[in-house]
């Protein structure tokens, strides 16, 4: 992972001091709430229903074990002993006190953690493949480029008061695990005919109340031009993005209103003026950043060691191994996903005790490194295969070895009305009930890979548009209702889901999901046909008929 140097540490500390001063000015009344709000948001501080919430950035989803311990400390000392991992690879604490925030942030800074730009109308945490650096299918480590972007876009003087929030994602793998097509800027690394790697630049994607799949405006951008081209996009957006209507202020609306071609033309014109200026990337600068990444010293090991073969005889271990363990690019190693989706539990939450144990296990089995994925699960990215049986027992002991990764109970959900002041309906109890309905893992495995995404309002923090089954909470006459979409996906053939039919009340939503799963089992062409492929093949009508026949 990237190791902070004194520049990085100093900046975070300076930020902590600045925010401490801003909090004091707010508490003394020198700053009004209207003035303070954008300042606190830029430090990741929201006001939710019953307390402040602090969102901490986890750049490109990589955490050290020491950082995880610090998160556990903050959960214990300033919160209620748990944290919530989000779809943007961040963590949120739900019960922070404003007057204690400067202390909490000073503690976090000691571990190189901060809340900078995790909210507000600025560039948010740059995200990438949670398996960057270890995935067998990537052409290079995208985190070098994510880190260059992170630095360039942190406290950027020109782009800290944009029309609206701005999200950047990057992938270098054959399979897009970063959902780059639903970001303001999505970057996809390719190798060209000459063997050089560069970026496909996709703009104007996003979910929220007006979802769009991004459009490619540059099929191949040389690496040296990454910063200047991103600067040109952002300058175009900062000048022409709408500020008159918060619902039309995202860049996707500008791209849509101008048309991708005209937008690309504006960017190109701006870019031509700056591409050979100070933002052109010197290979020495890139090498310097790359050199700040620490990689594990892997042992020379063979795949499928004898320890594994023996342990496979244990049925529970085998189920977990087949479900939660993925190939690593280095022989003899594996990537282990830790399911934060226990039966009947809130998706993405981890207790301070779990965090401490995970940090300990990361030290022992994963070279001190942990990953956070946008599916709200964690991963240990460098596990020797021979250690898997021992690791499994430890993970099982703290409840993070449910073998449901990518299955119907691996639900992505926003905090919903249980916490969030924007929400219309609850998300967490819906998710919890669905996991209970599919507690029988034979049933879940028979249904196969299926992503359910739940958002408690149209802001779509649970990414319901791209869920294979999307669930959106709405309010009807003061009651919670849920609108269901089918066939959304975030992968290479990204699609927005299609509405199934009229919204259903809270009491029926889990039944509807069960009905959809049952319908799929009847409708699929063969056992291996994925749910989302069945929906694509037969459309939503046969599902609609079955779900609404009895309602």
């Amino acid at each position, binding site marked *: 992972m990237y190791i902070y140097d004194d520049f990085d540490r100093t900046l975070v500390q300076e930020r902590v001091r600045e925010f401490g001063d801003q909090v004091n000015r*707010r*508490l*003394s*009344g020198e700053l*009004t*709430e209207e003035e303070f709000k954008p300042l606190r948001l830029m430090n990741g501080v929201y*006001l*939710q*229903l*019953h*307390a*402040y919430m602090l969102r901490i950035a986890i750049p490109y989803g990589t955490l050290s074990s020491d950082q995880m311990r610090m998160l556990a400390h903050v959960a214990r000392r300033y919160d*209620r*002993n*748990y944290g919530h991992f989000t779809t943007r690879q961040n963590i949120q604490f739900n019960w*922070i*006190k*404003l*007057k204690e925030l400067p202390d909490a942030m000073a503690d976090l800074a000691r571990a190189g953690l901060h809340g900078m730009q995790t909210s507000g109308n600025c560039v948010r945490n740059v995200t990438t493949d949670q398996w960057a650096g270890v995935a067998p299918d990537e052409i290079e480590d995208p985190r070098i480029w994510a880190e260059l972007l992170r630095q360039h876009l942190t406290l950027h003087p020109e782009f800290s008061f944009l029309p609206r929030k701005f999200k950047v994602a990057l992938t270098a793998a054959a399979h897009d695990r970063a959902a780059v097509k639903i970001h303001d800027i999505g970057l996809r690394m390719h190798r060209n005919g000459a063997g050089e790697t560069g970026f496909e630049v996709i703009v104007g994607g996003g979910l929220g109340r007006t979802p769009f799949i991004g459009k490619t405006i540059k099929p191949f951008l040389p690496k040296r031009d990454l910063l200047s081209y991103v600067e040109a996009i952002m300058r175009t957006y900062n000048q022409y993005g709408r500020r008159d209507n918060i619902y039309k202020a995202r860049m996707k609306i500008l791209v849509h209103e101008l048309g991708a071609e005209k937008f690309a033309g504006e960017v190109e014109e701006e870019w031509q003026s700056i591409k050979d200026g100070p933002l052109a990337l010197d290979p020495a600068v890139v090498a310097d950043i790359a050199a700040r990444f620490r990689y594990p010293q892997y042992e020379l090991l063979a795949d499928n060691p004898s320890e594994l073969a023996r342990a496979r005889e244990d049925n529970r271990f085998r189920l977990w191994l087949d479900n939660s363990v993925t190939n690593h690019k280095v022989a003899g190693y594996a990537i282990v996903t830790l399911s934060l989706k226990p039966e009947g*539990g*809130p998706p993405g*939450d*981890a*207790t*301070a*005790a779990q965090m401490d144990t995970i940090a300990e296990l990361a030290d022992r089995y994963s070279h001190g490194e942990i990953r956070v994925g946008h599916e709200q699960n964690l991963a240990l990215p460098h596990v020797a295969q021979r250690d898997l049986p021992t690791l499994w027992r430890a993970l099982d002991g703290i409840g993070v070895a449910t073998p449901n990764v990518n299955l119907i109970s691996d639900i992505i959900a926003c905090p919903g*009305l*249980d*916490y969030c*002041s*924007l929400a*219309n309906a*609850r998300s*967490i*109890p819906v998710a*919890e009930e669905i996991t209970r309905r599919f507690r029988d893992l034979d049933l879940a495995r028979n249904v196969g890979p299926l992503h359910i995404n739940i958002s408690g*309002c*149209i*802001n779509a923090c649970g990414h319901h548009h791209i869920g294979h089954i999307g669930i959106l909470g709405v*309010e009807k006459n*003061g009651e*919670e209702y849920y609108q269901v979409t089918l066939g959304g996906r975030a992968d290479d053939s990204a699609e927005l889901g299609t509405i199934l039919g009229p919204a259903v009340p809270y009491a029926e939503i889990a039944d509807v999901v069960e009905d959809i799963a049952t319908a799929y089992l009847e409708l699929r062409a063969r056992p291996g046909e994925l749910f989302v492929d069945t929906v694509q093949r037969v459309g939503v009508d046969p599902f609609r008929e079955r779900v609404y026949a009895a309602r």
Partner: protein
Amino acid sequence: MTSPLQQKLKVTGPVVVTANRLGDGAVVYRAADGTWTKDLAVAVVVTTTPAALELLAAATTEKVAVVDAYVAPVELTTQQQVLPGNLRERIRSSGPTVALPGQG
């Protein structure tokens, strides 16, 4: 997104003025003596739009004690007990409807 803060005020039943305390975000209600209380039973209950507006106006002159004051519905039981008037307010008053991790 229909946060109560953005809604136009039209009072048709008993309401209180509520807000979050600045220092810790705790949910508080406007009391008769012009202070803020965490106890809904002590909150001033009004039933007309002008009375609610007056209560809200007094509350919003406070720039430091609380944040985002607004008018919220309540329910009065036959014993004149004051209860939150909708799900959102119930959650604000009693916390999440789900068990908190590690505490359930």
